């Protein structure tokens, strides 16, 4: 199979050599956006596309949207995107998902900054506070709804959030923001771009924030909570090596502490340190737009897992190459390859190291069949080799490290047909298959002993765990209404998740003791399938006089299809119960030369949430409405004074099974230059 694929890649390269030259340049998002009067993106297919023409369900949050949101964190901004669910566990920790399936340490949403993964691979989730990016340096946030594994690889199954920062080569950035707020909130951030001559460009940013954790009105042990704080720094440089070749080097660091909810729904006072370095060489050649990148991310995560301190040291190294080129007038292609190494130690019980290596090839073909019809097909094949080394804790079954010698080989695809019968109407028909690979923790990095009633049990990862396969089909229609200066859309989608991952639970022993002195074991298991269908309605527009408005409503219906012998409820995977059927947003805003005012209302319908308990249990979460907003006054010399708020409807609101979310207000003084 691999030989066949490599042969295919070789043939593609020969095709490229035969193709006409495609002299290319780097993508200037700002210039493209101004030209086409809409955002552009590469997050749908890897090729630059206008947001209205991408063959996936996507929303793009602009820098202006971010500024006007009044939000101080990314999850709050994302909560206002149609179809996104956000579980706010604390003042600095949230989990985000697309169209349901949200959970503690939500694994289905892949998050990246400029294409560099900030999703934490070892445990399979995103600790949003660790993202080394200041809100003021973000050009746009691209939100893909549904699987996009064919471009991004494993774990882009529920959706993708790709955060695009300002480009130091094209965007001149300079800002300082000072925010103070209720609940002890304080934040300072600085962003500055510099140009040295005609060939070196850099953007530097740094920020620090601290806040009080929400008041503990529940049964969460005080020792499981900590006041959130974060310090992050980032450097992004571009060196123009030749007129058509550039080297981009990005470095990032974050040091964070938060009260978060780990996958068994216990609170943990967690600490993270992340460092990442990425180098990307991009060149416009006769063979197309060639790009080679390599990055390494090191993570230290200190968490409390089943009341035991766990320290994970995770190292991810990713190298990739791709070529993007157009043949003739109607065919655009992308071919690529990626190699990834991912390793982490076992914890809380040390002694082992689990790692995998992934080799992948991918390709994309966009065919402009006519001026009204375009077809895109993308595919990717991943081959993962798992291994383990080190010792095993006493009381564990007598298996060797070779038990972990296992391969996972999976293909993923994205296909989309975009039909635009008029300049106002756009139909999309998409199909996708995404792969959610078991995390290193699932596969064996977690090792602990715990008491379950009078017994002592062991918890261990399961190297035989199968990937979850998410298949999604969607039909969408969008109509621009120039007479109303508005647009509106409707989407219907259906999704199936095969081999849903269930968590270890003391309510079900997975491996009985094989002999004297051997512990009964709890582990991760594939517990069956899950189906979802839903509908999404969106509308937005502008009204003469500086007014703007938007509204959306998303319905989802999730059904568990458990395998024999498994209960989604006790495996902490009862997504039918934990996914609200309805969520929606309404916003209204107004601006003139000096003033800007926006208000955002969000509704999440009734659902259930897991509570931390001896045995998994669900509690009712009543539907709730949140209100946020911002009023800002701009002054000369780039100075802006803004007052903003979140969760304004109640002083304390129950949004999850955890801490109650508190009303917060902020005052921000900013200067741009």
């Amino acid at each position: 199979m691999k030989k066949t694929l490599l042969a295919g890649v070789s043939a593609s390269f020969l095709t490229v050599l035969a193709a006409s030259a495609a002299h290319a340049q780097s993508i200037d998002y700002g210039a493209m956006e101004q030209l086409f009067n809409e955002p552009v993106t590469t997050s749908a297919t890897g090729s630059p596309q206008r947001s209205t023409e991408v063959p996936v369900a996507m929303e793009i949050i602009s820098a202006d949207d971010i500024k006007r949101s009044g939000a101080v964190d990314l999850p709050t901004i994302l909560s206002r995107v149609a179809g996104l669910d956000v579980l706010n566990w604390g003042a600095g920790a949230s989990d985000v998902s697309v169209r349901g399936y949200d959970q503690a340490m939500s694994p289905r949403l892949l998050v990246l900054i400029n294409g560099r993964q900030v999703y934490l691979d070892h445990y399979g989730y995103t600790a949003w506070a660790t993202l080394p990016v200041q809100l003021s340096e973000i050009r746009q946030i691209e939100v893909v709804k549904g699987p996009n594994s064919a471009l991004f690889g494993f774990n882009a199954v529920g959706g993708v959030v790709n955060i695009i920062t300002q480009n130091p080569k094209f965007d001149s950035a300079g800002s300082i923001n000072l925010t103070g707020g209720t609940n002890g909130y304080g934040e300072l951030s600085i962003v500055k771009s510099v140009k040295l001559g005609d060939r070196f460009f850099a953007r530097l940013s740094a920020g620090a924030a601290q806040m009080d954790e929400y008041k503990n009105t529940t049964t969460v042990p005080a020792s499981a909570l900590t006041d959130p704080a974060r310090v992050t720094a980032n450097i992004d440089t571009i060196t123009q090596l030749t007129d058509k070749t550039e080297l981009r080097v990005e470095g990032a660091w974050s040091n964070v502490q938060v009260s978060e909810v780990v996958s068994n729904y216990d609170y943990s006072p967690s600490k993270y340190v992340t460092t990442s370095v990425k180098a990307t060489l991009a060149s416009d050649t006769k063979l197309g737009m060639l790009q080679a990148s390599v990055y390494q991310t090191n993570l230290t995560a200190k968490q409390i897992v089943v009341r035991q301190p766990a320290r994970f040291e995770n190292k991810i190294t990713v190298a990739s190459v791709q070529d993007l080129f157009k043949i003739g007038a109607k065919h655009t292609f992308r071919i690529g390859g990626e190699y990834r190494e991912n390793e982490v130690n076992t914890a809380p019980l040390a002694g082992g190291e689990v790692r995998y290596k992934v080799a992948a090839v991918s390709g994309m073909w966009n065919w402009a069949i006519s001026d009204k019809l375009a077809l895109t097909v993308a595919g990717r094949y991943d081959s993962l080799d798992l291994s383990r080394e080190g010792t095993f804790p006493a009381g564990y079954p007598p298996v060797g490290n070779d038990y972990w010698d296992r391969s996972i080989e999976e293909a993923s695809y994205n296909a989309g047909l975009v039909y635009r019968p008029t300049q106002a109407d756009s139909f999309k028909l998409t199909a996708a298959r995404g792969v959610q690979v078991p995390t290193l923790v699932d596969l064996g990095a977690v090792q602990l002993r715990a008491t379950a009633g009078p017994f002592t049990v062991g918890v261990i990862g399961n190297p035989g765990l199968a990937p979850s396969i998410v298949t999604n089909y969607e039909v969408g229609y969008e109509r621009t209404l120039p007479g109303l200066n508005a647009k509106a859309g409707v989407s219907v989608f259906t999704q199936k998740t095969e081999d849903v991952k269930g968590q270890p639970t003391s309510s079900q022993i997975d491996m009985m003791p094989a002999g004297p002195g051997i512990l009964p074991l709890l582990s991760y298991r594939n517990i069956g399938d899950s189906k979802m269908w839903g509908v999404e309605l969106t509308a937005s527009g502008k009204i003469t006089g500086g007014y703007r408005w938007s509204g959306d409503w998303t319905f989802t219906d999730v059904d568990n299809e458990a395998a024999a012998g498994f209960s989604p409820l006790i495996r902490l995977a009862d997504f039918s119960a934990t996914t609200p059927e309805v969520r929606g947003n309404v916003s209204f805003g107004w601006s003139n030369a000096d003033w800007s005012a926006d208000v955002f209302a969000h509704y999440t319908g009734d659902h259930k949430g897991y509570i931390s308990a001896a045995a998994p249990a669900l509690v009712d979460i009543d539907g709730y409405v949140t209100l946020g907003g911002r009023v800002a006054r701009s002054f000369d010399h780039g100075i802006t004074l803004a007052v903003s708020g979140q969760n304004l409807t109640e002083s304390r609101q129950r949004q999850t099974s955890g801490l109650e979310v508190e009303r917060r207000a902020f005052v921000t003084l900013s200067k741009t230059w």
Partner: protein
Amino acid sequence: MSKRNTRGAVALCALTLVAAPLSVAHADAAKDIQVAGRALTFLENGPTGKATLGVVFDPSKPASVAEKNAVMAAIGGGMSAGAVTLTAKPVEASAVSGVSGVAALYVTTGVNVGAAAKAKKLITIGSDTSCATSGNCVMSVSADPKVEIVVNRAAAASVGAVFKAAFRMMIREV
């Protein structure tokens, strides 16, 4: 909400959407010129700073003259469009072979100067899509209701115009 009600609501919304008024968009010379100017910056070795657009018209055609007047008025003393600041000068169709000092020609509707422009190696831009699809223009641009850019590859090659690869992937080529 029951599933039956949900489906009913969706059907109602879809019907409302389809039935919503779609007013006829009118060509806006200023917007079209903005698109034209910005598109020129995506040429390899494209213009930066000040660039003059020759506005080609046929004095015997009132519609062409009216469009020329609208374009000249829109550009006025100078129009900023991305990395370029456009100025304009009127050029009669019969005088294209002798034109000089222009970065590109903006061809009003109903005028064909393809051959003369090719001889001068000048990029031609029209607001009428058929100008590009027929090969009479290198590029056609329109801003409303949605920015549409069409590039004729043969016409571009004949005047030596090479657009950047990323730009080519986002427009319609014929």
